[in-house]
């Protein structure tokens, strides 16, 4: 009897184990989310805007007629048709800016979408690239405040860019990295004080 009970108990436990470990098949839309975890698309938030633009669910999830009979081929076609990428999203969010332009809204981790040269100290090194073709920067940094935020910083009553007494100590930093000063100050700013005095 004891042996029988053990066998029943073990069978039940193994069944529970099997049931518990059985991987549940994911829906096709859940699989897509796994493929592009870096993208965030809030459906409800798009309802009104997309209705006004004349596009709704069918723009990204098309049900276009097909005469293809191979189910695998249709599945592959559907996958490509179902996965909107840059052009569709950026049409509103970048091109005509009718939708919010903050990258982080849809790309929570900017490191996944920025160019590889941005990985290391690019804030300090970006100058030459920006001078060569500013449009490349603007393809992502749509809001010029991103540039202006640093390049046109000024002291204000509420905050100071440099600490107290910086006028006395700035010489050392200016010699170490003059470019750092010139990101905000043009040369005439220096010459106002450092001009040669006529005898």
């Amino acid at each position, binding site marked *: 009897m004891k042996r029988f009970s053990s066998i029943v108990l073990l069978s039940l436990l193994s069944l529970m184990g099997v049931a518990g470990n059985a991987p549940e098949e994911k829906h096709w839309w859940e699989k897509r989310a796994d493929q592009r975890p870096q993208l965030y698309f809030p459906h409800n938030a798009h309802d009104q805007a997309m209705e006004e633009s004349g596009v709704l669910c069918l723009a990204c999830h098309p049900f276009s007629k097909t005469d293809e009979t191979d189910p695998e081929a249709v599945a592959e076609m559907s996958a*490509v048709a179902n996965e909107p990428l840059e052009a569709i999203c950026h049409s509103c969010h970048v091109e005509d800016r009718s939708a919010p332009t903050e990258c982080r809204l849809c790309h929570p981790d900017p490191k996944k979408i920025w160019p590889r040269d941005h990985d290391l100290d690019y804030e300090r090194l970006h100058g030459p690239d920006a001078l060569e073709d500013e449009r490349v920067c603007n393809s992502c940094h749509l809001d010029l405040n991103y540039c202006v935020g640093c390049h046109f910083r000024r002291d204000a009553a509420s905050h100071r860019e440099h600490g107290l007494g910086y006028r006395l100590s700035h010489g050392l930093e200016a010699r170490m990295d003059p470019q750092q000063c010139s990101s905000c100050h043009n040369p005439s700013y220096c010459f106002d004080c450092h001009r040669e005095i006529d005898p």
Partner: protein
Amino acid sequence: MRLLMLFSLLLATSGHALELSSRHHPVGVVVPESMTLPDGIRTDDKGRLICATCHGIEDLEDKRREEIDVEAEDFLHGGPWRKLDAFCFQCHDEKPYQRLNIHLQLDEKGAPMEETCNHCHRKMPDREHPPERDEAELRLPVERICLGCHLKTPHLNALAHSRKPDEKILENIRAAEKEHGIILPLDSKGHVTCVTCHSPHEKSVIDPQHPAGRQTADRSVEEGPEYLPSRWDSIYQADKKERLPELEKKLGRPVLLQYRRLTAEVLMRLPARDGSLCRACHSFDD
């Protein structure tokens, strides 16, 4: 179909000289004046059909059957033709060859045509009292009955939807049925199937106030749905541009994906063009 058969039996088994099947399209006949041949299709100097009228392979008539590559692009001018009848309908009128549209179910007086009903039902149901599914006496299970005429893959994403909905979606379906006063029927195994979204009945075959009869019908069954060009198509094409060549290479044929705006629907339980049909099942947290 007859035309298809003609071409499928194009080359009869033959010995040395090329012998045509008795069902091959005749040559040597004069093209009637009522028929307009498309550009690039030629006849002989007396206006008669010759091999080169349809075939692009040089000196076809002098070749042995084994020497002819029927898969060659120019075996039929303008090929390859995925749908062979499209080649035939360049010259022949398509209409007489079209199959009966059994969704056209009402006669001029608005009465259901029994003959049409009997394509799917063993016995024409009582129009006043629409039967339940198991009383509808369908000739085939509901999940198979459409496949007599329609492909299993009639449109993109169709197969992906032919599955058992999870509990959340089932709840949404029940709520949508209540909200819109419609039915969104599943098949005998509880899977989404064609009739979940599509109504097989022409509007007014079933009382439009009855849940089974309520449907979106912006146009007649004969006219079918309407798609109009959209400015979004170029954006859509750009979006797919990089991935399509890879897919085309894999499938070995061109793939056209385009965005056209759906502006009128028919035989739908709810409109798809404004997303109502999709929302009957799918809901999102944000």
